[in-house]
């Protein structure tokens, strides 16, 4: 005689099994089709010819739209008034130029707030390209794709006029200074690898915190890229000055590049666009327009 109703223990086990199955089904992998090319070497136009970059018809996240990510707040002089969509500021202008090169009109460009940390997370990206003063390094290439560089970066030291390093002429003069930089920037690498100060550098989450510490005298000086340095001394801390810039380390000059998902189908087309803009002088013109303040500063050897 089988009991008509299962003993409660068995029912509980069945229910648990059913629940587990449901839970697993709910979080079972959804292949969204963007991981197939995970292993294609970045930057190589893998079989993509110029013809494949049909104007305005790329395989973007949203068809017919070109989604560009940047961090919030977006800082001068790369953006103006914290509004990436106004086309003002060097990076905003470059983004619109690249979009135009790819056949997208200005109103087809969608801006997306992308914190620096999530620009390189391995999950699905919510942008087509991310433009956020990200320096290109071989280590980073393992995780994301980069466009060719759209700006050659030089790092500079900013210090208050009364600071003890205000008269620094060489790297040795910075040895005993308390320097600060933003996390995730090559400015920090410059301090660690080039200056090698005796005091541990202060590392800030955002540039405005670094500037606040500079104003308070909590650091002797901060290291930022040259355009930012001139913006800091021009608009944020009038009584500070650009002490000098660092000579480029290594063989390749440091460059900012646009970030794309690893193996993104757009990488070849975006790369072509950036290269074309560099060749026809658009980038140089935009640089002159938006970053013309970044004149030269003495080089610290």
């Amino acid at each position, binding site marked *: 005689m089988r009991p008509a109703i299962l003993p409660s223990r068995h029912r509980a086990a069945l229910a648990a099994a059913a629940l587990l199955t449901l839970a697993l089904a709910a979080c*079972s992998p959804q292949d969204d089709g963007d991981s197939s090319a995970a292993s294609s070497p970045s930057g190589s136009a893998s079989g993509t010819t110029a013809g494949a970059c049909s104007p305005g018809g790329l395989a973007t996240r949203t068809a017919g739209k070109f989604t560009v990510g940047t961090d919030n707040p977006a800082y001068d002089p790369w953006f103006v008034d914290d509004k990436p969509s106004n086309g003002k500021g060097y990076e905003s202008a470059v983004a619109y130029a690249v979009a135009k090169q790819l056949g997208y009109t200005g109103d087809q460009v969608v801006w997306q707030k992308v914190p620096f940390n999530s620009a390189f997370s391995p999950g699905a990206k919510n942008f087509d390209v991310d433009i956020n003063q990200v320096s290109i*390094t071989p*280590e980073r290439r393992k995780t994301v794709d980069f466009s060719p560089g759209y700006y050659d970066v030089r790092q500079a030291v900013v210090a208050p006029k009364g600071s003890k390093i205000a008269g620094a002429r060489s790297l040795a003069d910075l040895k005993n200074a308390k320097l600060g930089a933003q996390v995730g920037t090559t400015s920090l690498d410059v301090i660690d690898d080039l200056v090698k100060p005796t005091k541990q550098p202060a590392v800030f989450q955002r540039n405005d915190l670094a500037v606040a510490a500079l104003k308070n*005298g909590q*650091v002797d000086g901060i290291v930022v890229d040259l355009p930012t340095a001139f913006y800091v001394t021009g608009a944020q801390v009038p009584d500070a000055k650009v002490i000098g810039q660092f000579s480029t380390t290594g063989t390749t000059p440091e460059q900012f590049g646009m970030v794309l998902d690893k193996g993104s189908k757009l990488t070849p087309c975006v790369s072509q666009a950036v290269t074309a803009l560099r060749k026809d002088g658009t980038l140089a013109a935009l640089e002159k327009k938006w970053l013309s303040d970044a004149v030269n500063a003495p080089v610290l050897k």
Partner: protein
Amino acid sequence: MTVQDGPERGGGDVTAPAPPAAARDLGGGTTSAPDEYRPSARRVARERYRRTRTRRAFAVATASTLATAAVLYALIVNSPGWDRTRQTFFDAHYARISLHPILHGLWLNLRLLAVCGAVVLVAGLLMALLRTLRGPVFFPVRALATAYVDFFRGLPLIICILLCVFGIPALRLTGVTNNPVLLGAFALCLTYTAYVAEVFRAGIESVHPSQRAAARSLGLSNAQAMRYVVLPQAVRRVVPPLLNDLVSLQKDTGLVSIGGAVDAVYAAQIIASRDFNYTPYVIAGLIFVAITIPMTRFTDWVAARMNRRQSQGGAV
């Protein structure tokens, strides 16, 4: 798992001194000799049955755990993004290079935890005592303490730290440090003192009024009653929530990195954002968990010891 009632005995000729009558098993057993105890057949059967049930429960639990683990493992490893996830989160090379900077940063966390923890415990207890003072004359003290607790419990810690680290130096006061670590520690103490004060106050108010009344009737003053009767019981009761706050403080010490100091998590972030690899975060997280577990066990042990003493009527 079931608990065996009594020592296991072999089902055979075990000779043992007869237990006292009170402790004699009453399972309907017959004793063959007055000086020899033989478990009854019924008892042997019962114990055997219990053993098999225990074994079976253990086997089922093991099997279901293994099955769950296998399913989860298969799910994760076969997910389309697993290869990239593994490279980004579990990379031996980055684990190696990040370990030293993280441990170096952890030293800052631990120093902050020790100093802030001590300050917070003392200040929190003091604040709780101020809030529980009796008598109308102390109203302003009570009101101020209450206002302090309300304000700093409500103020988000990150804002408190920002205001302390960047706001206090902006005042340019002479003799006040502008060291971001000290200012950050000050902010931590402000916020956590408010939390801990509430924990202590809850403990104090949970002691039954009769305790105080009895102490007073024995001739102890209000202060003595608080010191010798109420507080020992109150503190013992709030050890677990205090540990909660201490663990929470341990993790929040990292927030002083807003001022530029490098703690364990920040050291991980520096490497992660330099090379676009998340492995350092995983390492830092595991290290924090590894620190918290012994701390929890230790406090459990302290609480258990306190309870033992209390139930034995020993010295409080």
